[in-house]
Structures are given as structure tokens and as C-alpha cells.
């Protein structure tokens, strides 16, 4: 009986492959019999499972050498595969992602549905893998310490830093495997959805040329930068003379506000006026096949009706556009909506820069004496998009960024597990991850409500000056608030940001995530932060007495 029960475990891998093979046969049969959806879904799920099995075997082989670090890493991978909580989260992942397309309203435009699926699939994958990483990292290290397994492991010739590094390596490789499998599943679903019927030809075009693409964004610059800078300087000087009180408390913030307001004004085309926006360094010179788009989100101002139509005329590098029967057409578009124009090849191919002149042709609204102005939101309200590649490469870059973020979470979990007991370690890691997710919001919020200089040193100088001023005026609470700002500034400076790259939003809107960004972020999030967190964890762990409950 003993031998028979052992054979059961020995035969498990072979049985798994046999089941996978049978599932493929069933899927093929279902497709042949006309049950295409069922067959495709079964084949997809089986492919994901088979990829997982193959990837797992590959990782185990990769970690197969006689080394302490890889030995620990391999044990973590084995632990991860067999942990129940891992299984629950994986089922959640496999369940959540494919279910979503079924919930989307087929009457909705296909481009929106595809964008939503991309955002949802990668957002859910990131969130679930983030939780999985936290539980795995903290649970693995704390579990070893609390159960006493660490005594057996560290009584072997293994340095404590090697143990921590091995744990991190195992989790990072396991994350890579899950990302590849989940990413493969998400990509397949996106392609399946995108292959479905679109609402109309414009919808199909939007899917193919605005969503499932990679386009580099080029922001506008002033036609005459020196003039622009001089205008801002003059405005600041004028205000300093007229209203010196505005600069008394926080000159840096006042200057920033003026610059921001001037920028907004520059993005505004007043009635009967023309403004030229220069889009430099398109990278299309000499390329007649370059796909270049102009994306605008115009808004009307000084009118009560926000959703009024916007009328304007365009010139591209001095040529009127678009033309119909030799005459220039004026565009009439709904306000507060995003519009994309495919630009003709000629003006773009002849020069590496595009000069877009916009003339306001708004009509005078009823009851008004003057036509409304047109404003493009600074940032993404007016930009040129140059196609650089396909969706697939962009998708992979997005996954690499996600992997880097998970590597940081893994390092935080391992370090926290080496320092705290299980609940505290999970809490600490969750706080860090939530902080990294919300850091942009915190920065904006504190930037709005607090002192902000342009640089870190500028902020320190501003705070010091303001705190000293408050003390002189015996406003002790205000002085305390300024000093407290040092702490928040320092924490925000330390805190990583998971959202500053806007990777998923870029992917879903067909904006290129450049490799340079990916590698920089990977070096920061996947290497520098994990090294710092690991070093902190090791400093405590190396001095810690490894007895149960010692933390």
C-alpha cells in the first residue's frame, strides 16, 4: 500500500499533461462540431495551464543548481504553487479577466470596450498579483520564522542575506511566470474582442488605429519660445510691482501659478485670433508612410453652455487643411470630446516639425456679443501622435513595468517579514504599496495645500523661510505646520510611485511606452528600491535572534 500511494504522487506530472492533451482534443472536437466559443475558451484555458506548467518546469530547472540562493528561491516557487491562498487568487484572476467581456454592453462602441478590457485585465492582474506577492513574501519569511523552519535553513551554510535574496528571487520569478500566463490570456481576450463586430467603420478604425497601436506623443511648443518666456517674466515682474503681497508669503508658489495660468492662456485661441502650435522632432522626415495623427479635445470658454460645438480652421505647415474641392473646410466638433485627425503625408514628410495654426471660427452664441474662445487642456488636450509600432510590443513593455512594480512589492514584503511578525509585515507592505499607488495624488494634494518650491532644496528653503517668519510673528501653529511639511516632503521623496508612468492608461489609449522609460523605471523600481529595502531588512534580520515570536 505504501508503494502504491507513493506512485500516485510520482505520476502526478504525467497525469497533468495527459489531462491537458485530452482537453486540447476536446477543444478541437468542439470547434470541429461548431461549438466554436466553447472550444476556443477551452483551448485558451488549456494553453494557459500548459504555459504555466512549462514555465514552472523551466524556472525549477533554472533554479536547479547547487546554490543556497537558488535553493531557497526554488523552495519559494514550490511553496507558491502549492499554497492554498495562491490558488484562490489565481482562480480569482482566471475568473475575473475572461468574465468581463461578457458583461460589456455590445451596443457600446467597440473601441471603448477594448480600452476598458485592456485597463480592467491589466489592472486586475496587477492588483491580484500585488496581493499575492504580499501574502507570499510576508507569509514565506514569517512562516519560516514562526514555525522554526528557519532554524534548519540557517543552520546550513547560508548567509542571512542569501536567504532573503533567495526568497525575493523566487517570488520575482514566480511573478514573471504568472505575468506571462495572465498577460497571454489578457492579450488573447483583447484580440478576440477586437476581432468582433464594430459599431461602424469609424469605430473599427478607432480600434485598429487608436487603441491597438503604439503612438509617440509630441506636445506643442510655442512658436517663439524666447518671446513666450519673456512674456511670462514680464507678467511676473508686473505682478511683483502691482501686488507685492502675493509674493510675500510664498513667492515660488505664486510664480508657479502665474506660469500655469500663462500656459493655459497660450492653449486658448480667442475669437478671430490665430495661434500657432509647433510640434518639433516628429521623427518622420523623409518618410512618406509615416502615420501621424492630431488629437484635440477642445473646450469653449466664457459661455454658459459647456457642450456647445467648436468651430475652427487648421493650417499644417502653412497649408490650409482639410481641403474639399480646393477650398478649406472648417471643422465643427462637439466640445469636451476627443477627436483624432489623420494628417496627410506631405506636410509631415517634408519636415521633422509640424506647425499647426488654429483659427477660431466660433459663432456668436445667442444673447452674447462676442464669440467664445477655444481652449485645449494643457497636457493632452492638443497633441500630435506618431505611430511607432504595434500593440504587442507596447503590451510587453507594460507587463515589464508591472513586473518591476511587483519586484518592489516583493522586496518590501520580504524585508517586512524579516523584521515584523506576520500581521504587522502584511500591514507594513500594504501601506507601502498603497502609498506607492497613491503617491501622485498625495504629491498633488500636498502641492496644492502646502508650500511648493520647484526643487526639493527649493521646498526646504521655502519652508525654512516661512517657519522662521511664522515664529517671528509668534504664529507657532503655522511654524509647526511648516516644519511638519519637512516630514511629509521627506516621506513623499522616499515613496516610490506606481502610477507616474501611467502605463496601463497609455497602453489602452495607444500611446507608446518607450523602452527608455521602461528600463529607467525597471532600474528604479525593480533594482534600486528592492536593494534599499532588502538592505534595511537585512540590517535588522542579521542582528535578530531567531527564536519563535521574536520580532
Amino acid at each position, binding site marked *: 500500500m505504501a508503494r502504491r*500511494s507513493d506512485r500516485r504522487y510520482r505520476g502526478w506530472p504525467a497525469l497533468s499533461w495527459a489531462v491537458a492533451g485530452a482537453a486540447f482534443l476536446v477543444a478541437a472536437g468542439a470547434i470541429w462540431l461548431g461549438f466554436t466559443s466553447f472550444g476556443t475558451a477551452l483551448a485558451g484555458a488549456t494553453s494557459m495551464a500548459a504555459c504555466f506548467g512549462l514555465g514552472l518546469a523551466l524556472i525549477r530547472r533554472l533554479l536547479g543548481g*547547487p546554490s543556497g540562493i537558488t535553493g531557497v528561491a526554488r*523552495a519559494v516557487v514550490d511553496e507558491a504553487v502549492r499554497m492554498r491562498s495562491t490558488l484562490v487568487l489565481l482562480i480569482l484572476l482566471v475568473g475575473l479577466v475572461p468574465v468581463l467581456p461578457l458583461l460589456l454592453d455590445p451596443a457600446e462602441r467597440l473601441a471603448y470596450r477594448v480600452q476598458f478590457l485592456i485597463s480592467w485585465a491589466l489592472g486586475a492582474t496587477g492588483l491580484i498579483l500585488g496581493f499575492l506577492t504580499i501574502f507570499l513574501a510576508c507569509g514565506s519569511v514569517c512562516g519560516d520564522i514562526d514555525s522554526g523552519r528557519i532554524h534548519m535553513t540557517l543552520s*546550513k551554510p*547560508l548567509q542571512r542575506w542569501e536567504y532573503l535574496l533567495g526568497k525575493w528571487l523566487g517570488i520575482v520569478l514566480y511573478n514573471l511566470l504568472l505575468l506571462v500566463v495572465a498577460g497571454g490570456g489578457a492579450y488573447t481576450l483583447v484580440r478576440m474582442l477586437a476581432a468582433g463586430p464594430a459599431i461602424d467603420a469609424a469605430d473599427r478604425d478607432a480600434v485598429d488605429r487608436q487603441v491597438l497601436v503604439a503612438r509617440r506623443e509630441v506636445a506643442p511648443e510655442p512658436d517663439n519660445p524666447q518671446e513666450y518666456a519673456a512674456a511670462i517674466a514680464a507678467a511676473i515682474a508686473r505682478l511683483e510691482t502691482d501686488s507685492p503681497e502675493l509674493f510675500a508669503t510664498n513667492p515660488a508658489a505664486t510664480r508657479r501659478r502665474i506660469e500655469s495660468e500663462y500656459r493655459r492662456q497660450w492653449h486658448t485661441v480667442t475669437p478671430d485670433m490665430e495661434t500657432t502650435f509647433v510640434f518639433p522632432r516628429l521623427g518622420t522626415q523623409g518618410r512618406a508612410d509615416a502615420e501621424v495623427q492630431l488629437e484635440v479635445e477642445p473646450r469653449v470658454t466664457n459661455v454658459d453652455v459647456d457642450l456647445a460645438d467648436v468651430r475652427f480652421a487648421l493650417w499644417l505647415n502653412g497649408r490650409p487643411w482639410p481641403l474639399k474641392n480646393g477650398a478649406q473646410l472648417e471643422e465643427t466638433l462637439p466640445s469636451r470630446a476627443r477627436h483624432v485627425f489623420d494628417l496627410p503625408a506631405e506636410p509631415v514628410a517634408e519636415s521633422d516639425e509640424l506647425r499647426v495654426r488654429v483659427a477660431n471660427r466660433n459663432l456668436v452664441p445667442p444673447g452674447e456679443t462676442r464669440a467664445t474662445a477655444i481652449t485645449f487642456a494643457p497636457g493632452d488636450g492638443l497633441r500630435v501622435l506618431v505611430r511607432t509600432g504595434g500593440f504587442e510590443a507596447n503590451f510587453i513593455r507594460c507587463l515589464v513595468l508591472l513586473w518591476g512594480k511587483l519586484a518592489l512589492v516583493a522586496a518590501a514584503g520580504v524585508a517586512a517579514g524579516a523584521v515584523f511578525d506576520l500581521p504587522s509585515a502584511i500591514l507594513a507592505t500594504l501601506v507601502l504599496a498603497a502609498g506607492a499607488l497613491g503617491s501622485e495624488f498625495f504629491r498633488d494634494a500636498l502641492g496644492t495645500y502646502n508650500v511648493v518650491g520647484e526643487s526639493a532644496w527649493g521646498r526646504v528653503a521655502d519652508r525654512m523661510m516661512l517657519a522662521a517668519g511664522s515664529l517671528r510673528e509668534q504664529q507657532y501653529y503655522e511654524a509647526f505646520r511648516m516644519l511638519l511639511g519637512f516630514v511629509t516632503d521627506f516621506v513623499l521623496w522616499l515613496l516610490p510611485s506606481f502610477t507616474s508612468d501611467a502605463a496601463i492608461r497609455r497602453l489602452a489609449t495607444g500611446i507608446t511606452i518607450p523602452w527608455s522609460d521602461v528600463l529607467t523605471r525597471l532600474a528604479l523600481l525593480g533594482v534600486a528600491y528592492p536593494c534599499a529595502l532588502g538592505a534595511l531588512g537585512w540590517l535588522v534580520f542579521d542582528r535578530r535572534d531567531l527564536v519563535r515570536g521574536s520580532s
Partner: protein
Amino acid sequence: MELTKPASEALEPSPGRGGEIDVKCVGISKSFRDFWMRPRVRAVESLDLEIRRGEIYALLGPNGSGKSTTIKMLLGLVAPTAGRIAVLGRRPRDVATKRYVGYLPEESYLYRFLSARETLDFYGRLFKIPSRVRRERIDRLLEMVGLDAVGHRPVGEFSKGMQRRVGLAQSLINDPQLLILDEPTSGMDPVGARQIRDLIADLGRRGKTVLLCTHQLSDVEDLCDRVAIMFGGRIRAEGRCADLLREEGVTTIQTPALAAPVTDEIRDLLARHGIGPVQVERPRRRLEEVFLEVVERARAEGLQTSGAKAGGPVPDFLRGDESGGPAAAVTPRAPPATVDTALIDSLVGRQADGTPE
């Protein structure tokens, strides 16, 4: 093939069994502190310990007497608050020391999701043992502890005694020079306990140094060369087992069963010499012997079990003075334990002549 020791580890060869010191502690103390860094428990206090090469040394004491803390300090898992420790001539945290140390903790702290074979493989990797040698050793060790038939089952499904066997096997995977066994027979059935006793005796004969920590005093009587009894974090008695157990003033003569007249005659003879009172009794068999006999009989009848089977022989790679098999080539034959006392004294903070620094 014999691996050459690194130059940094080349130390003086040992003159012979028992002449060198594998473990030396001088005045070690350990206080555990609470979250606020206040001293909470004083687990070990000014403990001096010396274990020689090839000795089987028992550390005894009631629960909470500081045995396990002492062991954890020897393994570098816990740092002493005061005092110095040298294990195999080096500091306990030194990775080079740990290459030659095997450790079985008081409870089987194993990964429940790994099989017995994977568990041994994991620990073998930590010793950087090449895969071919590792596989061979795992086979031999599983056979030795009687788990070769269930090697692919997850350890979490094992009984406590079977887990102890896995723990014992992992402690031997590196062919250790110093073996630290904390309650090795806890949770074991009498068959397993007997096998472990035999194994310890065998390892002792092969020149291994064994530090045994147990509450099974009969095991200690049977196996150990020297014994230390701890209480309150200190060693209260220490010495050779035979010396400690010798009962002065009593002589026992053992003969085949005697008839009553013969017994009376002997009583009379002893009375004439003024010796008395004399106690005559028929010896009883030990329950352990009867148990082992029943199990052996069942096995001989071919009855099946899902648990551990009878253990096999001690593998050749666990070398002492004897020649090892091909697997023996992995671990350097002479670990750095073979040190001169001056080096140990320098590590534990004493002059070579024995006076404190």
C-alpha cells in the same frame, strides 16, 4: 577522489580521537529582551562547555533549563549576550563552520508541501552538493530511515515520527563532523527510537562528534561518553557517564536461573562473611525488547504498512575512520574541527595557556 581543503581551512591534523575540541564555550550567557528592550528571561548564564572530537556528549536538564538556547547559540541562530563560542575552530555564524554541522531541531520544522525527497534535495542544495551526489545520498538516507517507499509523498501527510525521520536524514545529508540532535527520538515509535540509538552509536564509532539533548535518560546511559546536567541556565553537574552512574557499595552477580537450595546456600555463605541483607530476584525483560520482537515478527510475516518501514544500514558516505563510497568525495574529509587548542582559545578569548585574556 578527495576534494582538497582551501588553504584558509588547512589546520593542524588531529593527533587522535578525543584529543581535539570541536565545541568550546566560555562564559556564555543569554538574556532575551522584550519589545522595550527590558531583560525578560535569562536563559543561559555563564556557561562553560567543551566537547571533544568523536565524543557523544549529552546535554540534559528539565524543560526551560537552557539546553535549546545553548544549541541555538552553537548554531549561530541566537547571539550570546556575553561570552565566546568556537565551533569546529570558528565562530558559529561562519558559513565554513556550518558546512560540517548537522542539526536536528527539537521539532520537525519541515515544509509541509515538499515531499521527503524534495526536502532532502532542498537541504542538499544549501550545502551546494552536486546533483548526482545529492540524489545518491538522498536514496541512501531515505533507505536508512525507512522512508524510501514514501519519498514522493508530501511531508505534511507524514506522522510526527516519520517527520522526525526526515529531519534526521536532512541532518546527515552533508556528512557532518558535528551532529547536534535535539530530542531525536521524540515522537518516534520504539523501533525508530532504537534505530536512532543504534545510528548515534554507529556515528560515534565512526569518529563523529554528537551533541545529544534528550529527556530519554536511558538513551544517554547507553550511548554517551560524557554528560552535562543543566538547571536554571547553568551546568550543575558534568562528567563521564560511567563515573556519574557508578553506585559505590553494591555488587551485582548475574548467573543463570538458580534453584532455591542454591540461593539459600549463597545467602548462608554471604552471611558467614557478614554481608547482608542480600536481595535475590529474577530479572524481568524490558518492554522495549518485547515490543521490538512483536514488530519484527509482524514484518517477517509480510504485513503491509503505509508508514515507515524498517530502516536500512548507515550509508557509507557518513564516513569516520572508515573509507567512504564514491559519494564521499563531496565533503572534505577532515573538517576544520581538527584544530589546535590555541586557535580555539583565541576565538573564545583565552590565552593559549588557558588563562583568560
